[in-house]
Structure formats: C-alpha cells, structure tokens
C-alpha cells in the first residue's frame, strides 16, 4: 500500500552530528538538535511503531526505552538522546515475540491498537525492574499510558500473565 522504498533522509555525518544507537545500530544525526526523538524515529528512520498521540508526554503512545528506561520520545530531544541506546518496539525482541506481546495476544488486549505499542514498551520497562508487579505497581507504572478504547483491565491481566511466563 505504501512505498516501501521511502528514502531515509541522509544527513551527512559531521563532528557536530549527534551519535546514538537505535535498536543496536549506530546512527548519526546532524539535523536540528531540538527535534524530538519521536519524529527522528518516525519521519527520518521510518520506524513508525512508536506513535504520536499528544506531543507533550501525557499519553504514552510514543514510549520507547532510552538506556533501558521507559521514556516519552515526543518530549525527548535529539540532544538529550545523544550517546544513548534507544530501543523501540521494532527492537524489543530479536527472536519472535516478547512474552508481553504473546500475553497481549493471548488475552486479546488491543482494540484499535494505536496505544498498545507504547503500553507494551512501558510494561516491558516495568517488568525489567519488578518481576512480579502487584495491581498497584501496574497502575502506578501504567497510569501515564492512555488507552481511549478502554482496554486497561486486559492490559493489567496481560502484564501479570507475562510476568508469570517470564519468572
């Protein structure tokens, strides 16, 4: 449906260029350092798994990992991402599906699905720090991620299922 050969905007690497790692690959960016990471990922690298929802860090649809921490890519500038390791949903799991993605499918979480990648990235960071989260842990960790379709109870169940699977 879409042109697969969408050209990645080439920015000449220079000494002033921002260096970062995205999903294990080194990248160099010499555009506007104030550009949010989200638009670099989406418009320049063509990694569209991370979504634009609010632009001000209130909905979590753009959640990625920066040095392992769940981070809102829409309010993280390229300057702030310099030298960091960024993981998006495209790099979440090298082999097949992440246990959270499996649990999401098992419990049939998504409706429209637009927020779900951000939810999964947020949940993955939670499980990295807490192997067996309680309901309260989950609510605290996930309260920044909005789902307008209202799949919250299934999200909670899927996180618990994945936690059980991973332990």
């Amino acid at each position, binding site marked *: *449906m*879409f*042109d697969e050969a*969408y050209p990645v*905007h080439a920015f000449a690497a220079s000494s002033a260029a921002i260096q970062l790692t995205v999903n294990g690959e080194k990248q160099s960016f010499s*555009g*506007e350092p104030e*550009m*949010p990471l989200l*638009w670099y990922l*989406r*418009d*320049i690298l063509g990694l*569209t*798994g*991370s*979504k*634009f*929802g*609010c*632009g*001000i860090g*209130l*909905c979590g*649809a753009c959640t990625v990992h920066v040095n392992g921490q769940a981070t809102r890519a829409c309010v993280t500038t390229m300057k702030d991402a310099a030298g960091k390791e960024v993981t*998006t*949903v*495209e790099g979440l799991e090298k082999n097949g*599906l992440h246990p959270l*993605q499996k649990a*999401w*499918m098992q419990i*049939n*979480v*998504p*409706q*429209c*699905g*637009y*927020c*779900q*990648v951000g939810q*999964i990235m947020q949940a993955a960071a939670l499980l990295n720090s807490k192997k067996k989260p309680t309901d309260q842990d989950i*609510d*605290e960790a*996930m*309260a*920044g*991620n*909005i*789902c*307008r*379709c*209202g*799949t*919250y*109870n*299934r*999200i*909670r169940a899927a996180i618990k299922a994945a936690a059980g699977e991973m332990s």
Partner: protein
Amino acid sequence: MSGIENVSRRRFLTGGIVAAGALVLGVRYYPKLAAGGKVPHDTNADRATLHPSVYLGIVPDGTVWIVAHRSEMGTTSRTTLPLVVADELDADWKRVTIEQAIGDARYGEQNTDGSHSIRGFYTAMRVAGATARFMLIQAAARQWDVPAAECETDLHVVVHRATNRRAGYGELATAASRFPVPKQEELKLKPKSAWRYIGKGSVSYDLEALVTGKAIYGMDARMDGMVYASIERPPVLGGKVKSFDDKEPLKVAGVRQTVAIDPFQGAPAFQPLGGVAVIADNTWAAFQGRKKLNISWDNGPNETYSSDSYQKELQATSHNPCKVVRNVGDADAVFAKGGKVHEADYYVPLLAHAAMEPLVALAEFKNGKATLWAPTQNPQAVQDIVSKELGIAKEDVICHVTLLGGGFGRKSKPDYVAEAAVLSKKLARPVKVVWTREDDIKFDYYNAVASMYFKAALGTNGKPAAWLQRSVFPPIPSIFDLNAVYGDPGHLQQGWTDIPYDLPNLRVENGPAKAHVRIGWLRSVANIYHGFGIQCFTDELAHAAGRDPLDYLLDLIGQPRTIDFKGVEYPNYGASLETYPWETGRLRHVTQLVAEKSGWGKRKHAKGTGVGIAAHKSFLTYVATVVEVEVNDQGEVRIPRVDTALDAGLVVNPEATRAQFEGAAVFGTSVARSGEITATKGVINQSNFQDYPVARINEVPAQTNVYIVDSDAPPAGVGEPGVPPFIAALCNAIFAATGKRVRDLPITKLGFS
C-alpha cells in the same frame, strides 16, 4: 435466525449516522464482468480465478481473498464480517487473506458508524460466501458426474460421501469459475448448527501486527517525495484569515513554504476550515514553523459564543413549551390538577472524541486524479468532498483506508482528508497533513451540549401519572444547514422519542438551539445525554417514592409489549420496525438479568458505597448496567465493579462484543469524570489531555462483567450501546453512596473526582 432480508428497502438517512446496507444486494456481482466496465482499483479478489462477488475471490492455491469494505477502528468489523463470509463458504480461516477495500460504491454503503456494520452486511456476507460454495459444489459434481445435491462441503473441501471423494477449493476454483453466478434464490444458507465461526467469533485478524508495531495507521502512511503540513485554522468557527506574515516560519530549518487554505463556503459540512498551512520536510519542522506564524483573523459572528451563557440559554428554552415530538394522553391535564410534582434540569456539555491517533491524511494529486491514504470511517464521503473540492469526478478519487487509531465517529467526517487533497493539488506533490492533539481537541465535531428538563406528577405508588421531558441541543444537521436548530428524527429517536415507559400521559418535546461550533456524532451520540437524563430522573423518582430503583424501573418499563410509534417520526436507526420492533420485554429481561448477576439487593453496602442501575436501548440493542462505587470523604470516586447485560440479537463475535462493552464502561467513565469542552468568545478552551483528561488505568472500573443474551433475533449494534446506561448507572450509584444527585456532567461540578 435472521432470514434473508432485502436490506435495500431500508431508509437512507441523509446527514444522519445510519445509512444502513443500502443496495447491498444490487452490488453483489462484479460490474466488470457484467458490463465490461473498469473499476478504479482492482483487488486481489477481483483478480482471483473464482470471483463470484465483490467481496471475495478464490485462487488455485486455495487462498481465499476476502475484501473488508468497512473500516477497522478497534471494533473488529474488518475481522468479523469476513468471518461471516468464511463461515458460509465453509472456508478454513487460516487460509483467508483479508484485504481492505478502497472507497467504492460497488461495495455498498461504507460509513463505519452507527454500530451497523454487522446489521447492515451480515446477510450480504453470507450470500457472498454461499455463492462461492454453490459454484464450487457445481464444479465438483460435474467433475465426479454426480448430482450436486449429493455433494456437500467440509473445511475448505467439497465432498461426495457416497463415493468418498474430496476436492479442495483451490483445485476446483478454475472449473467453478466457468459456472454462472447463481441467483440468491438458488442458495441455501447453512443452518445454525453447522456454523463454524458465527457466534463463536475470533480475535482480530491484525492482532499480531497490532502488538508488534507493524500495523499501518494513517499516521504511518508515507510516500516517496511527500512533504508534511501543519495547519493553523481559524480559532472561531467561520473565521477567516485577514492577513498573515510567514517571515519567521520560513526561517525554521526544514520549512519549505506556507499556503493559505480558503475558508469553507456556506455550512461547514466536511469542507476544510481554512487557515494557513506550513509545509516542511518533516512533521516537527512543520509544527515549529506553524508556531511562528503571525496571523490576523476575522472571527466572524460566532465570536459571541460562550458556554456559560449558552447553558443558561438552553435551559431557559427548556423551561418553556417546545415542539412536541411524541405525545401520549394528556400530561397537561394531569399537571393542571395539582398534586405532587417532581422536576429537574439535566445538562451535558460538549464532548470531544480524542481518539488516540490524531487526524492525519496523505494525498497525492497527479494527472487529474487524487489518491488518498487516510484513517477514515467513511471513504465514500472522502470521495464526495474531495471531488467537490478539487473539481474532479468522484471516480477519480481513490481513497485507501488505513487502520484507524480510534474513530468514535470523528473519522466519519473527512474534513482533514480534504485538507490534504487541496494542498496536494496546490503543491503538485504528495502532502501529509498531520493534526496535533491540540488541533484534534479544538477543531472537533463535538457531541452536542444538551439541556434537559423533566417534570413528573407523582401518582399511586410514586408512579408518574404524567411525564414531561424537553431536550434542547444544537443538532447535527446544523453542519449541513446553518439554519437547522431542531433535533432531527434520527437523533431525537436516540433515547428520547423512544422512552420505553408504559405511561398513560407522556409528552416528549424538543427545543431549538443554534450551533456555534461543528456538532457531530460521538460514540452513542444523543443517547449520551438522553440516556443520562431519563435514567437518572427515573432514579430520582424512585427515591422520591421511597422505592427500590430496580423495582421502580421495571414498573415503569411495564409488561412486555411492542412500542407503538404511530404519529412519531421514528427512523429506528434505519431498520424496519417489522424486522426490528421495539420490544420492552427484551429491555425488561436485560434489566432483570443484570440485577440478578450483580446481586442487586442481596449485597450489603457500607457507608460511602452504593450501586446504581440504568437500562437503555440504542442502535437496536437492549442494555442494562449496574455500577458499584466507593466514594471517600474527599469525594474521590472509585468503581470496583460494573455488570452489564445486553441483548444485541444474534452476536457474531462474542469476544469482540465483550471487549466493546468493557471499553464502553471506560469511555463512559471519561464522559462522567472529566468530559467537558467549553468555549469562550467562540474559542475552545481545552487543548490536550491536561485540560481534556480521559480515564486512565487507575480511574476506570476495576472489573467489568459482560453478559450476552443468547438470541436468534436479527443482529444489532455493539460498538456504542454500552456507553449511555453506564453513565446513568454510575451517577445513580454516586447518589446511593452519597445522597448527592449529579444532574450536571461531569461529576467534578459537584465536587467529585
């Protein structure tokens, strides 16, 4: 089981939300085969060896292509309708590939709105599948030289049991394609006992793509050579650019140019709002450049609009006699006798959709044709508006439908797609228009603000001897006709003219209200305010009578009967009243069912806790909901449990249906807790999730139990009907817990949070 129904005789509602299944049967056959004509865009189904219907094709390797002609925004239309085709075809779901249709009238009506995809196309899908199965059987019978009547199908194969022969659909496709397409009368649909998928359902066809980020939404559409646009629109509806200065935006790295867009002419309908577009190499540069625009506006007459005074105006209108839209007996005569009377004003503000994916569209105008990629609920409306805006034929507008990151009715209105088309023509290159969340909130087609007045004369046992209700709201037709001030039958029917109570004296009225913002349909539409008003006022009367709210509600619904709409303009959501009569017995049944399942009257409720009940039919589905709340001393409301029972007739996909009702409870929570859009001097005050909050994981019902009534009645809607009774039941529960009556949404106005 629903018989084959000629859906083409259903009413087509102009400008309303339902244009159900118009002429579905007339477009079953591929026009290219029939008339030698060309279609604007071939599907794989069109190109398949066996292609007996626009909705499917079978190729020799056994792959079945099924065309999803409805949009997918999370309700599973894109999965559930193809499931019906696959069932009637006796196809192996694992060998089905779904492809999304472009906007094209040959598929029938495509506006994925009004909870009517299944209702409108259930029969058409069965016929499509049965047609292919019929032809495959013919081919096998001839090959084996046996009567077709002796052949049957099993999963993806035709079998002749007597001689133990089998042939796969793929190997039969070529031979089957040589047979004439049978008439519908020749087809025999499967009996219910043989159904594989109908009633059992399935998860989304796209499930894995949704959790891996591979799913393509409108926001993800891209094209070689495209530029990005962000548009500064007139802050007041109907405003115009007086002058603008783009010196500063043009200094922003990545910004290419600015383009003025004309304001709309006459009524807004789905035309672009106008303004100034900033064109750039990436989305962020377009956003940055736009912030630096300096525009002088002519705001026009809507500058006088402010929500506070408007609320007072609506309320004042509702306190005087209005247009009578339904009447039973003589309510005035009863009121004139004096006696105990109970009155109340109810109010619901403007509401925004706030789907997670902000509006976005990609357009390429080339060689006199427009090609679009958009998350639209209504690709044929895209064809209409784009053809008008660009002055080209409708057939020259190719609208590809991406997945939708939520829709809730907003994406039925293609103003944003028209913007991209207009810009692409001006710039002679592909343009992607990206709305910010602020744009999404400020330039919505809002669910109408509504003021309602209720009056009841209390008779024996506290039952109303007379009931009067007036609603006043700016109507949706105002987006098509600036002079429209009264509710149209299509929206007055939504929980208002169809108040289901068995009352001797009932008067239903509607008053005029002029719109100053664009009004549109949002998940359950006018049912939101009407359901809230009627179901909470009922609860008030129950308490006034000192009666149990469940008992009282059942008493008002009365004994099972079919509502007589004689003298009432009642479109019945585009369905015939013969096929879909209004049966109070079914509303009564779901009310009793939810009461039983929730343990109504059996559980003890501590101080600060309570339960509320409400029953409401919408989109032809009967729903009753019980909500339990805990309210602490600070007024913080927690919702430990929701029970909801529904009778939607035949339910094709129960799993998806449960999900819709769980989601409806969350959507309703957002409306009740924080849903409020206001305007000052014509400008919308809210802009993003900080001032238009929607419910988060820690604010929603902790548990939502959904009970689906097993029914063979014709299928009805499931996407929207869960919302209205939830809101009312929640507010009734708050009253039970606190003694405070919410009459004015959101609940924050009464100090709750």
